[in-house]
């Protein structure tokens, strides 16, 4: 998948050759710094990209439908029912002047997954499922009457209302407290396990991704630089960027001296870039890194690295 943004200051090649697969019931984590293209990937999948964006190439096949080239009607039929998304800021993603119960009802009625008479029961059932205490009372509450954690639970309830088979969670716990974060992610884990729903979890927090995901996709400046099973990635990252990212993440009980920053910043995506966009920051770069194409090497089963000189 390739996505470009046309801006006043030139074309931003936000995503280039991004490819990964998500299997049924699997949790895939996408991790990267800001500007790495994590959210753009999610938005492209959901068909809610900014009008300035243009998908220049690629496909995103989901249940036989190419999401990137589907018509609006097709996408609308899929969104909510088969595909759902959780946003970063639950407060702004909820309609402030409708009670949360009504908002969930809207989704249920829209997709007609339950008979009209059963809608209210289903709302309570969903709120119970996302572990909101006192669901009957909460269904009548407005978003502003709830804490951030509660709002995010409502968002999850909305997202899973129609039992989607793929849930895209874009930084679902950023801005929430650690204990709330743990509870929300536990909830997502459990939903994935019980309903067989696949999850794409997007985060900048490597620790969180590591703990929650089966497979990890590491992105840098619009490229997928490494894709591997979570354990393999942590045991031995093969791309220099992944290794650096791990070294710069504060771990439990780590000392400051163990924290190694990554030199440089994400390159300007408007400029002419070398095939490997990490080249300018990489300490292992050699002359042959400038020769296209960027390789995509399988170093172990299910472990792909986009680097000429993997670790």
């Amino acid at each position, binding site marked *: 998948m390739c996505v470009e943004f046309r801006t006043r200051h030139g074309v931003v090649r936000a995503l280039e050759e991004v490819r990964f697969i998500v299997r049924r019931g699997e949790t895939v984590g996408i991790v990267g*710094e*800001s500007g790495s293209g994590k959210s753009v990937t999610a938005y492209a999948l959901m068909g809610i990209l900014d009008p300035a964006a243009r998908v220049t190439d690629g496909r995103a096949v989901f249940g036989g439908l190419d999401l990137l080239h589907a018509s609006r009607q097709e996408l609308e039929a899929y969104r909510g029912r088969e595909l759902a998304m959780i946003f970063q800021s639950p407060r702004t993603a909820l309609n402030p002047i409708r009670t949360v119960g009504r908002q969930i009802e809207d989704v249920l009625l829209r997709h007609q997954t339950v008979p009209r008479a059963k809608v209210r029961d289903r709302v309570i059932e969903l709120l119970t499922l996302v572990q909101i*205490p006192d669901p009957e009372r909460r269904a009548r509450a407005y978003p502003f009457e709830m*804490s*951030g954690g509660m709002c995010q639970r409502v968002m999850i309830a909305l997202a899973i209302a129609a039992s989607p088979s793929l849930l895209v969670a874009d930084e679902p716990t950023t801005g929430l*407290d*650690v*204990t*709330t*974060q*743990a*509870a929300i992610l*536990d909830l997502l884990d459990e939903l994935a396990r019980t309903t067989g729903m696949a999850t794409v979890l997007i985060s*900048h*927090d*490597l*620790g*969180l991704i*590591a*703990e*929650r995901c089966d497979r990890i996709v590491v992105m840098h400046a619009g490229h997928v630089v490494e894709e591997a099973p*979570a*354990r393999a990635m*942590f*045991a031995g990252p093969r791309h220099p960027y992944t290794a*650096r*990212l791990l070294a*710069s*993440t*504060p*771990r*439990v*009980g*780590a*000392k*400051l001296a163990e*924290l*190694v*920053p*990554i030199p440089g*910043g994400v390159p300007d995506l408007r400029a002419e870039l070398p095939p490997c966009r990490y080249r300018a920051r990489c300490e292992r770069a050699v002359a042959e890194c400038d020769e296209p194409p960027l390789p995509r090497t399988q170093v172990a089963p299910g472990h792909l690295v986009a680097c000429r000189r993997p670790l």
Partner: protein
Amino acid sequence: MILDVRALTRRFPVRGGHGAVHAVDDVTFAIGHGESVGLVGESGCGKSTVVRLVTRLDDPTDGRIFFEGHDVGAIPAKRFARTAARGRIQMVFQDPADSLNPRFTAFDTIADPMRRLGESAMRARLRDRVHEVADLCGLPAELLGRYPHQLSGGQQQRVGIARAIALEPRLLVLDEPTSALDVSVQAVILHLLADLRQRLGMSYLFVSHDLNVVRMLTDRVLVMYLGRIVEQGPADVVFEQPAHPYTRALLSAVPADGGGPRSRICLTGEPRSPIDPSPTVCRFHGRCPEGFERCEREMPVLRAAGAGRDHEAACHLLDAPVGSAVS
């Protein structure tokens, strides 16, 4: 002691209603010369209010704040801006984009405290001093003419730090200084902060919700819950042998990367309301997995937690061993 806070209390009246939000309730702690103290807790626990009180941006309802032996808490926040102590307590903000005036260049931002509070000798060589401070914070001189929106997040935070240390403060309050930054940049800023403390001999009050980061940068930690300090002690002791159930829950919620399954303590229920809380009920009661009858009857106070020197926690469990919960 550089900072000695005693029985600090701040209540906010509830808008259009009765009662008051007890944002900070009877908080006592001290920071030694050159010491780095961490303040952790979840949103709404009152750590931001403590920060605003200690930095004298807000007036306490009750309690005293001694800074270098002077009772600065008694000076109204409005007048404090013109006292000599103003320059000696400085702060680094959470969101660098929000904390820099969009109409000020980096140079003007760093020079502002010197122009307002600096001695005449410092003002005379303002230019040199700004360059010196910027250099100390790893900010290239050519960026000094730029506006905040022309700088990256990491550079913005360097400007914020340079502004804070421009007057050579003795106490630097860091309010989640890296939570708005990417991990790769966070690492750089954390190193910079550790380095500056060593070079300039400042004391830190480091506020964060990221426990891993707090542990890296602090000697001692205070844990707050709903306006009260529930545990305090040397960072290693608190993190290795937490005595308060809340601290344990907090630590267990931190993602452990690839470390295999760990036992997580799940907090159930909603936190108690901060509006006029009962003075005789433990604030954590109701969410506490180990709460018992006494917690509803008596507010626990900080007491020695045994494990190490000056390790204290406010929990009745320290009196009554778990399982034998009798009054």
